[in-house]
């Protein structure tokens, strides 16, 4: 499993870096708030917190929550 995941990551890294660089003047659409990944970290943390407490999985999303947590 480890091997598969690392190779998948390697393949993805290769794919990502094979892309042509996007110039600053071409990033107008990417600056739109709906295109920003984790645009509101506070809200993402709150949402992650209630899911962590009701499901058996955690991590892999980039958001972070803390505390014991019922909410």
């Amino acid at each position, binding site marked *: 499993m480890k091997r598969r995941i690392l190779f998948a*990551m390697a393949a993805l890294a290769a794919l990502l*870096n094979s892309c042509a660089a996007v110039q600053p003047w071409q990033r107008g659409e990417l600056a739109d708030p709906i295109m920003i990944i984790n645009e509101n970290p506070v809200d993402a943390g709150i949402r992650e917190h209630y899911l962590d407490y*009701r499901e058996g999985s955690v991590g*892999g*999303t980039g958001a972070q929550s803390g505390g014991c947590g*019922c*909410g």
Partner: protein
Amino acid sequence: MRQTRIRRRRELLQRKSLQGAVVMILFMLLPLAAQGQDLSEDELQVTMNGYFDNFNVNIVYPSMSFTKRVSDSTTVNLRYLVDVISAASMRSHFDVDGVSSATPKEDGGGDDVPDEMRQEFGLGFTDLLKGGLIRGGSFSLNTIYSTEHDYTSFTLAGSFSYLMARKNTTLQLGVVRSWDTVAPQIRDWKRKKDVYTISLGVTQILSPRLISQLNYSHNQSNGMLSDAYQVVQIAQNGDVTNYEPVHPDARLRRALGLQMNYKAGSATGFNFGLRYYWDDWDVKSLTASVLWQRHLNPAMTVGLGLRHYRQSKAFFFKSEYLAPEQYMTVDTKLASGYSNDYQLTLTIRGGYWRLPVLASEKTQLNLRVNFYHRHSSTPDWHSRLKDLFAYLVSLGVRYKF
């Protein structure tokens, strides 16, 4: 002898291929050139959140977050959150809520009196690194302290991010350490829980309309990992005996997540997410999500989201225990099952309205409503229900100054 040699050679090849994959990733990422980063804007965010479910758990949790630039290269942020839990606890004959583990305070009681309150304080800073070998990076350090009458948690989180390839690629490295103390009021002991998390992320601009983020997290928890308020009931010889749940005292949890944002046209965006999770308790899960967002006009954006989650059970989870075992649990989080989360978001920007709150263009109003359904293969230990239905409402104001 020959077979041993073949096995050793195979192991060596496997190890080399692992090392090769890691080197390959580093080789492809390192030659890219570093670029400068930007700091986030000064902002005050106040949010009121509510959670209500069919297990009679009601939670209201307001939060406040403040970010301020204190120099050309540094911002500080403060955060405060309160969980106020009501209703469920007093209706339980265990004096504890089976879902949230909320317990009544000594002076609590009655359906209109909050049974439990948790407070969370956060303090942190972000600093742009302007010199030396890591010029072009930024460093953040955050602390979170969470306290309630039977639980305290202190978290220290450090992260480093590095922009490369003319700002097309961002590498992120995060390290989180938590020190928790559990002191259940129905037990006469106090136990520790320690959590270490390392996370790695790569954000990549793929085209003028497509951006992706890959995240890997490695989480090690040690100590008190069970919920002391839950009860394992075992029927033997006509008598029912209550036992404390016993979980292994260590858990290694790993997750790999991929997010992709795509802009379709001038006003529509799609966010796709996929996550695979696995741990050494044999819980494996897959999460898939999609969020569609559209600008209705310059002042208003609407979003619709769907998240599906599916997991397998922990190796020691059983729907029924016939005799005490080394590990026992009734925790629904460790049972197999699935969940669906439906989301509606509405963002209203200020400057286009006559309302006092929205008069300034620096103000933004955010509304989020979620409908969450979780189905588990085994009924919940306390409510005896297999299906949890919950509504979540969040209303927030962001003010950028």
